[in-house]
């Protein structure tokens, strides 16, 4: 079957199998930031945005994404550098395999916070939003430091932030 999926602002037409997962469609089309970590929707490494919302690309058919907007980290490079830099400053990206999925989820969280006017989310609220992103290297603590540091920086540099 033929689908047209808008990936990072560019319409991609593809002839696909009906049971092809979005993650495989994206990786076949060069979005290699999208990682497979578990096959059972538990790890969050494959997180992408569909119509602006974070979803598991291993948990959705490419066919269902037909006509929708998909964003991967390839389409958010500047945002990744800005936000991810705070994680990297803690050394908490570690092996980096979960980083793209985590950063996609974080960007969604930051945007949601912005819409709700929250500029200093609590530890437990952040943890709840990111509960679906497993990381085995960091124990999460350094990533949490980085996320808080980002929000702190953003409170005083609202205009400088592209997020």
């Amino acid at each position, binding site marked *: *079957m033929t689908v047209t999926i808008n990936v990072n602002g560019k319409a991609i037409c593809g002839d696909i199998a*009906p*049971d092809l*997962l979005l993650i495989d469609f994206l990786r076949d089309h060069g979005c290699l930031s999208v990682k497979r970590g578990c*096959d*059972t*929707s*538990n790890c*969050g490494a494959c*997180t992408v945005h*569909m119509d602006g*919302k*974070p*979803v*598991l690309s291993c*948990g*959705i*058919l490419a*066919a*269902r994404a*037909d006509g929708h907007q998909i964003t991967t980290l390839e389409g958010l490079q500047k945002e990744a550098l800005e936000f991810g830099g705070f994680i990297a400053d803690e050394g908490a990206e570690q092996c980096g395999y979960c980083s793209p999925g985590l950063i996609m*989820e974080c960007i*969604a969280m930051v945007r949601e916070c912005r819409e709700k006017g929250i500029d200093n989310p609590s530890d437990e609220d952040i943890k*709840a*939003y*990111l*509960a*679906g*992103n497993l990381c085995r290297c960091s124990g999460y603590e350094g990533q949490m430091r980085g996320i808080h540091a980002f929000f702190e920086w953003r409170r005083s540099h609202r205009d400088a932030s592209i997020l």
Partner: protein
Amino acid sequence: MFTARDYCRAGSMEEAWTLYQKKNNIVVGGMQWLKMSDASYGTLIDLSGLGLDRIEEDQYEFHIGAMTTLRQLETDAGFNAYTDGAARKALSGIVGVQFRNLATVGGSVAGRYGFSDVCTLLLCLNTYVHLFHAETSSEIPLAEFLAHPCSRDIVTGITVKKVKTKVFYESVRNTRTDFPILTCAASLRYNETPSKILLSIGARPQKAVLFAAPAEDAAKDPAAFAARVAEEIPTGSNVRGSAQYRSHLVQVLAERAARNLFQKD
């Protein structure tokens, strides 16, 4: 992961229903649980083009479309206000935000999953399931739906009919995003005389079941009430917990429900 020969984004419920009458075809909800199977299907029937992804509230009821995501329900202000925040409590432990942005209310209900937080919560509310059959649709109480075996009707949505109520929810889990070891939802129905407490216990590990009692019983002696619930609701064992532990949890959570519901605000 399953395989499939064909995919169809249905243009109408009739089309979806007709396709679904073929044994090898399957309706895709959020696909999160379906994905875990290794089955081979004919056509995957996608309902995502039918506008079933909305929560509509009026003064009598909530209508929740089958394709409404768990995340929508979790964050719906009206539904949370009605359930005293139980919706958020029931849904926020399910894997993660990305998962709940895909998994659907219709999928959770149609799947009749034993571990379902969603079914546990909805069961203690005044919930009706909308089924599409041929060209007609019908509406049956959730308890009745859960008791029935799977049929070839398609769940198009649910209605939660408003009553004067107070709602409680708690689950016990291994990690906080694991399947629950036990789920407990309770509602106090002021609309009936005498007022009634409805307790729904799920992940026993079997499907959620209801326990109803006059509110007065639970209010007077929550511990004795809880002991009775634990005695009457059967539990089983799996890797997440033994029947003995689950029955203990039934008692603990039932008592908490009773105490919570009768606490003066």
